[in-house]
């Protein structure tokens, strides 16, 4: 019997007791055994059959139970049911269209928010989100106004609706940025589906989809594992200057006036959130612009004028 045959038989449990004992005292066995022991560390997470079935059956059999119930009830109850239904719809639509309704207030003061399933959201300056806590287990739906970074736990579909698009994911890390005519989604891990305007795109890690003033673009980048603003920095890649200035306004809570400046020219680069002077230099110097700080107001002018 060759060595290979011996290992094959050992794997299949086909060695006789004597052969097995002899083999298990060799050095080769010690090496194989170490490897097989170590492989156990890569065991799959335990699959929860009960909860998996609970979710699936709730989802699949729900309608089956309601149909016979409807057939059994008397016509009087059916009419009553219509009133109950109308009142319920009225109640929910009232709450839906009144932003102050319970459980769906905008969250904007905090910068880091943990959602009910311990998914994580980090909000950039001047941004806000809201969601329904009651419905969270059924649909993880977030409404976003502004820019936020998400780390989503695995689970039912997670959606981010903002004025210019809808992002759908299962579990992943991504940012959504929706300011005026700038919409950008960047995926850091997992994959996300973006539906904006008429199209939808699936993004892989380290890819960005954006719509700037109606123009769509998808590109890939190499190194970042989280958005710059989490580290106190705003980064741009060929972004019209007025959008960069708007970000400056949000980060430093200042007003900015431009005089004779082409605000549609493109800016690539970044600025830090901890020093207004340096941030202004970072933006104006490459574009040959001057700036002047007057209290809470910044005036940007063209160099040499």
């Amino acid at each position, binding site marked *: 019997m060759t060595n290979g045959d011996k290992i094959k038989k050992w794997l299949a449990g086909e060695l006789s007791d004597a052969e097995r004992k002899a083999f298990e005292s060799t050095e080769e066995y010690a090496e194989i055994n170490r490897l*097989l022991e170590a492989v156990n560390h890569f065991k*799959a997470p335990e699959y929860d059959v009960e909860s998996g079935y609970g979710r699936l*059956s709730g989802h699949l059999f729900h309608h089956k139970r309601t149909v016979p119930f409807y057939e059994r009830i008397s016509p009087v109850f059916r009419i009553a049911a219509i009133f109950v239904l109308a009142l319920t719809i009225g109640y929910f639509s009232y709450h839906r269209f009144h932003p102050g309704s319970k459980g769906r207030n905008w969250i904007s003061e905090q910068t880091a928010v943990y959602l009910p399933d311990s998914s994580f959201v980090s909000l950039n300056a001047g941004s806000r989100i809201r969601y329904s806590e009651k419905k969270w287990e059924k649909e993880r739906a977030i409404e976003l106004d502004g820019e936020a970074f998400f780390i989503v736990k695995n689970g039912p579909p997670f959606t981010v609706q903002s004025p210019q698009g809808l992002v759908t994911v299962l579990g992943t890390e991504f940012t959504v940025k929706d300011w005026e005519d700038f919409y950008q989604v960047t995926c850091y891990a997992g994959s996300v589906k973006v539906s904006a305007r008429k199209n939808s795109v699936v993004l892989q890690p380290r890819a960005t989809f954006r719509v700037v003033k109606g123009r769509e673009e998808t590109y890939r980048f190499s190194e970042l594992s989280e958005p710059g603003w989490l580290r106190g920095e705003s980064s741009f890649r060929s972004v019209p200057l007025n959008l960069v200035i708007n970000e400056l306004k949000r980060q430093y809570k200042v007003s900015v006036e431009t005089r004779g400046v082409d605000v549609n020219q493109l800016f690539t680069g970044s600025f830090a959130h901890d020093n207004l002077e340096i941030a202004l230099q970072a933006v104006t110097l490459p574009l040959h612009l001057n700036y002047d700080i007057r209290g809470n107001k910044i005036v940007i002018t063209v160099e040499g004028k």
Partner: protein
Amino acid sequence: MNKEPDIENVCSEKVFSELYKSVSKDLYNFLYYKYGEDSDPQDIVQSAFEKLWKNCKNVLPGKARSFLFTVANNEMLNAISRKKTVLNYRLEKTGDHTNETPEFLLEEKEYHDRLQRALEALSEDQRVTFMLNRVEGKTHQEIADMLGISRKAVEKRIYTALNILRQKVELTKI
């Protein structure tokens, strides 16, 4: 009204739930070891069962298992863009490691890193066969049935996988 339960297909909640209880974990493990944890194996399991329910009239209970495996595998192939399979190494906290030297722990960690890379580099078929046998304790026959291949083929895959792992883990040690 026909009160006789129809056992010719899987359109009964009872048959369906039994199928779920007996197949879902195997299916999950199969997908996990074949495609890695980033491929959302849980979602694919759920959606395969959903498809089974929708097609329950056309699937005999005896064929449900292979229906689920085929559907899940196809769905996975369509969902992923052939990215690298990632198996997560779980650090086990055991109390009896306190006496070990940093050198030993470092060597141990490097060994696991090499093993992880080697596992990820196996072919999907090799990895799923090997892991189901060595980690989940499935017999060669059970795996053969699960994957629809012969017992001999299972044996060969496990042996080949072990050889590749040994080479990759040991070679780089020098």
